[in-house]
């Protein structure tokens, strides 16, 4: 599994897309942190759980996280299947390790990106709100597991890229709509998607974590039955 994690992780690091995303995310976090630390209201607002130093980062990732994670990694699994490299992996390790390795790599990549932002923001604001970072990591684990499931489910990369864009846009819209309007037709989605937990009810992130585990288990089951 180690080899797969390393290869996938550095593969993600290398692309120009990921560099732009990292710059964008770090930039936004720094700007918002600067704004808050210079604002005289900051001391007051900090006591409000809704506004913390990492608010900028969380905000960006809630809006764009799904799109970023899905479009960067929609081909994590099906790429190796399409390019006929998968046989060289599954004859060396279990199929579960292949899926787990891909998931861990994607999640680690995003954990690293957010960690970088967190360190910079903490330095600027001289605060240390680790729980906010942990919430983000749960949220990102959810996205990473869904991404691996998508990539296992959809064998062709042309389809998975289209789906990744559609899902990346639709998920936050549905999720936020359900989170903020109890009368909306999608209100039930607040308990399924991680947006309501992220925005309002962090305790519900437990559900999100369970869902991530389920998505990963589904991906493993699918992958184990695939004829490669």
């Amino acid at each position, binding site marked *: 599994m180690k*080899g*797969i994690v390393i290869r996938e992780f550095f593969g993600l690091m290398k692309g120009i897309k990921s560099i732009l995303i990292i710059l964008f995310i770090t930039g936004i976090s720094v700007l918002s942190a600067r704004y808050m630390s210079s604002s005289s209201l900051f001391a007051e607002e900090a006591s409000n759980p809704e506004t913390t130093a990492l608010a900028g980062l969380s905000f960006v990732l809630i809006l764009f996280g799904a799109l970023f994670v899905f479009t960067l990694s929609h081909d994590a699994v099906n790429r190796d299947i399409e390019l006929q490299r998968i*046989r*060289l992996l*599954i004859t060396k390790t279990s199929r579960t390790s292949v899926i787990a390795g891909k998931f861990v790599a994607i999640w680690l990549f995003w954990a690293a990106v957010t960690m970088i932002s967190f360190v910079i923001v903490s330095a600027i604001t001289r605060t240390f709100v680790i729980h906010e970072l942990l919430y983000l990591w749960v949220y990102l684990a959810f996205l990473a597991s869904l991404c691996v499931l998508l990539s296992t489910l959809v064998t062709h990369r042309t389809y998975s890229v289209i789906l990744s864009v559609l899902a990346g846009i639709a998920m936050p819209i549905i999720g936020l709509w359900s989170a903020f309007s109890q009368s909306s037709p999608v209100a039930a989605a607040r308990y399924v998607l991680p947006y309501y937990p992220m925005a309002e009810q962090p305790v519900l992130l437990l559900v999100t974590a369970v869902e991530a585990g389920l998505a990963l288990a589904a991906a493993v089951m699918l992958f184990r*039955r695939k*004829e*490669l």
Partner: protein
Amino acid sequence: MEALTVHQLTKTFKSKEVVKQISFSLKTGEVFGFLGRNGAGKSTTINMLTGILPPTSGTIEILGTPYHQINSIKRRIGVLPDNSNYYNDMTAMQHMIFFSQVKGIPVRKDSLSELLEAVGLGEDMDRKAGQFSLGMKKKLGIAQALIGSPELVFLDEPTSTLDIESALQIRDLIGSLASKGTTVFMTSHNLDEVERICDRIAILHQGRIEKLGTIAELREAHNNRFKVKVKYRSGDKSRETIWLERIRQVADDVKRSEPFLELVVDSEEDIPWIVDNAVEQQVKIFGLEIEQPSLENIFLEQAQR
């Protein structure tokens, strides 16, 4: 001890039965050749044995481990699948390191480069696989199958696409594996190669094993046995006729065009008998050429049915 035991193994794609209840076993340290025409089911069988394809039915035991625990012995087997691709942006050496990590084997660069040298990629180990020719990719495929000195190696057409010299090198490599006690399961369309390196072979025909055994055993079971060409001179015409009549009792296809006589006998024992009778009838024998059925004959007879 058996390195591999297969019982009633079957694979069905949709409703098409491609491998039909085959059973065989491999002894530790033997080189087993799996032959058959295109589409006979060789690769499908290898893919089932190595965990690439789930079998439809039947049982497999690899290195004393039941098939459902195959993950626990993947470290101890090596596989060159029938078609496989590589990472264009990685060098041969980087592949070897990556595959060692995937396999969970400590990375030892010196032994990895030894493997690359053994397959003939010594000079290309720092080139990217994206620039490799078909033959070079095949060599990389063989090298990666041998990472971590596996006890059982599956090689699907290890020498196809290789030039003659490289094929010989790989043939030697397989021979040296066997002498170190590695069990090898290989497919090949090169019968000469199979004849030289395989201890036993199986001929697969439309998903069934039609023949199985050592090459000597297959020869024995084969129909057209020994083709004999005799160069002779007779002293006495009537005695020659007696000799020829005796020969016809044991031989078929007797063709005479002096000073040669061609015939086909069922058993090797008939040859000294023919010579003894020649002596008795004062027929002088100047030369004797015996042609054993080649694997090719055996194979063709199989394939023509």
